[in-house]
């Protein structure tokens, strides 16, 4: 939710605003106490080889990763951005309509230092297939690729995406063609899945259970079952009952065929995990100033510390600011009421708007379309907020110049009400941030001001990069 156009014009002023917010609605512990996250030194440091963007869904991780990629490339790095599930528009914003499993060069990167940007989208099945093809002879590879269990596992397992993201990261790092890899993390049910899923698959591939499954296959298929002790056959029997014998058969065949590759999987997963703990890696936790997103961010910060993974800081997206933060919500609202009561006797209290447009014509989304209901499949789009101020839908025929004092009063009251609403949002965002800061005062933060719409091109990504690198959200 976004209020700002990217571009050279003024950016919001959380700087001024912070003081005012602290002074009015919010208690102590504002951002001034928080270390600022400086992005550019991280991007410019040739020692930084991997940046991981993590956080819960819908906070702008992928956009952040892409914007960092553009900025790093334009500052002379040779960058590859590994996205997991980019929105179509975002892929297009990098000039790539079909991101696929191979890095593609992004055109239009400006920069005199020979920087380049490449982008790719993880195709988990393709990545898994490639590993199989690379590590097994053709006959065995075909057997694996055709196995029903493999097909479900490679396309469906909830952790495959995370695991394959790790694999891909390892591969990109090993190729050594890029001096900076920026990774977006999968939209998991929890941000921590990215760290846990590879281990889970690894422990499955390594565990007792898989050995048990392999045992009969090794000694001659299901006939070998009879050599197993009673406990094991009971277990196999139970699973067979539960899943159907053929399912277990598929798993066993798969496991037998994959046998020689298991060591490799585990070794590579461990190596990538160690890579993430190395000094050349920087984790950026991405969040929006909302309770759930910041709670996930706090979990992630704690988890990274526990795993000894290097956290660079928190990217707080979609932060609202106000250039008029000295004017509190209460005062703005009171002033709006003054104007409305004093000069707008023809309208009910609490209504704001412009002109003499009746309030009923003003909610284009609701009432106005009731007339052309053919455009709407059903009448069920009732008005959202009963207490919401009706829109002042000024039409051309009513003119657009506030000629009279009354018009001016309405317009000014509208500006004040908007401002009161903005200040309420600011106060709430500040409270949420303060909660995070109280838990993790050591975490450096950069704020990115809210944008009015989605990013559509490199210029948009560039503008976000600009905001990312000015920690207080403005320039």
């Amino acid at each position: 939710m976004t209020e700002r156009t990217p571009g050279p014009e003024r950016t919001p002023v959380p700087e001024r605003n912070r003081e005012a917010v602290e002074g009015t609605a919010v208690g102590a512990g504002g951002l001034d106490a928080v270390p600022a996250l400086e992005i550019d030194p991280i991007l410019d440091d040739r020692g930084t080889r991997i940046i991981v963007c993590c956080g819960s869904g819908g906070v702008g991780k992928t956009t952040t990763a892409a914007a960092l990629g553009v900025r790093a490339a334009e500052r002379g790095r040779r960058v590859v951005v590994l996205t997991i599930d980019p929105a179509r528009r975002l892929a297009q914003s990098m000039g790539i309509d079909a991101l696929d499993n191979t890095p593609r060069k992004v055109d239009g990167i400006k920069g005199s230092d020979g920087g380049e940007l490449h982008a790719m989208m993880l195709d988990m099945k393709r990545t898994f297939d490639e590993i199989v093809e690379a590590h097994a002879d053709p006959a065995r590879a075909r057997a694996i690729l055709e196995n029903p269990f493999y097909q479900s596992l490679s396309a469906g397992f909830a952790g495959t995406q995370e695991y394959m993201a790790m694999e891909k990261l390892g591969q990109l790092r090993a190729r050594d063609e890029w001096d900076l890899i920026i990774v977006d993390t999968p939209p998991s049910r929890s941000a921590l899945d990215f760290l846990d899923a590879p281990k889970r698959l690894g422990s499955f591939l390594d565990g007792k259970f898989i050995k048990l499954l392999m045992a009969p296959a090794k000694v001659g298929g299901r006939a070998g079952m009879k050599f197993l002790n009673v406990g094991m056959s009971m277990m196999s029997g139970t699973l067979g009952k539960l899943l159907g014998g053929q399912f277990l058969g598929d798993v066993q065949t798969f496991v037998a065929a994959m046998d020689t590759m298991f060591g490799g999987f585990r070794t590579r997963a461990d190596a990538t995990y160690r890579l993430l703990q190395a000094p050349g890696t920087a984790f950026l936790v991405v969040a929006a100033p909302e309770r759930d997103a910041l709670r996930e961010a706090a979990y992630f910060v704690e988890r990274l510390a526990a795993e000894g993974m290097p956290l660079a800081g928190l990217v707080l997206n979609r932060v609202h600011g106000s250039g008029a933060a000295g004017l509190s919500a209460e005062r703005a609202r009171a002033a709006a009421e003054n104007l409305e009561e004093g000069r707008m006797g023809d309208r009910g209290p609490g209504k704001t708007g412009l002109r003499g447009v009746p309030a009923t014509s003003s909610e284009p989304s609701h009432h106005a379309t009731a007339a052309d209901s053919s455009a709407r499949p059903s009448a069920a789009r009732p008005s959202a907020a009963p207490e919401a101020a009706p829109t002042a839908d000024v039409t051309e025929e009513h003119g657009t110049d506030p000629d009279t004092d009354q018009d001016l009063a309405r317009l000014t009251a509208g500006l004040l009400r908007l401002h009161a609403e903005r200040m309420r949002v600011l106060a709430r965002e500040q409270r949420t941030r303060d909660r995070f800061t109280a838990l993790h005062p050591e975490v450096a933060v950069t704020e990115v001001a809210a944008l009015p719409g989605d990013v559509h091109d490199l210029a948009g990504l560039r503008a976000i990069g600009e905001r990312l690198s000015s920690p207080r959200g403005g320039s």
Partner: protein
Amino acid sequence: MSRLQVVSGKGGTGKTTVAAALALALATEGKRTLLVEVEGRQGIAQLFETEALPYEERKIAVAPGGGEVYALAIDAERALLDYLQMFYKLGGAGRALKKLGAIDFATTIAPGVRDVLLTGKACEAVRRRERDGHPAYDHVVMDAPPTGRITRFLNVNDEVAGLARIGPIHNQAQAVMKVLKSPDTAVHLVTLLEEMPVQETADGIAELRAAGLPVGRVVVNMVRPQVLDEAAVRAASGDHREAIARTLVSAGVTGGAALVEPLLDQAAEHARRVELEREQRAVLDGIGLPAYELPYLGDGADIAGLYRLAKELRRQGVGAA
């Protein structure tokens, strides 16, 4: 209204909040609803400000008119162990299986099995009856995985069909699909009036339809009041800055002159957003689904906000016969 209400949506659109509000709305006037979560995030407990939910149905809220909302955090592992116990009396063997990693395999690695267990538990609650033959719950509301994964999650039959062609998991998948594809189920998608969530909603609906799953409604969440539109802002940013400054002062705002510019900036942003929202509304209208609209909660989604959203849903027809 369908007995099983599945709520999905892109991350960050507030689907847990909407699911909770829907459960409250459906419980109004003496009904009983069960709100289930399936992703182990304890989002419901956070929302209702209670301690973490155990694997048991527990009353978490009272709805207006004497209704009750129960909540359950479904855990795939516990569901599987229950299941083994119920059908095979395998309490002890369950522990042995767990030690071997077999339970972990079945609930996290074997594709689709986890989803069958999660949706299976929700469907069981839908079908469950009291001794007197009345349904245990009037409605079951599921806080489901996000839009990008919802079709795969619900379409368990396809997922499991290739693997477990016989056996109880197969039968379970069949039974679950029967409920999920019936008019007893409605899948709602929560969105914001922003480009990416709207696009994802359109894609999600197409996927659900292709899989034969019953799409319910679009829920447009966090709709903000529209105070000024572009024409008004154009008017204001003309040659009226001084007049506006005077008006501010007359209304009791000190330092009016310095405030005019930032206030007009905010108005311009607002107008731009109103325009974008209008565009996204047009896209949603093109989808051709009925919609609920819920207001933005300025103070965040707390319990008071939930009740307000529930009331709003009632007003828009939720729970009407």
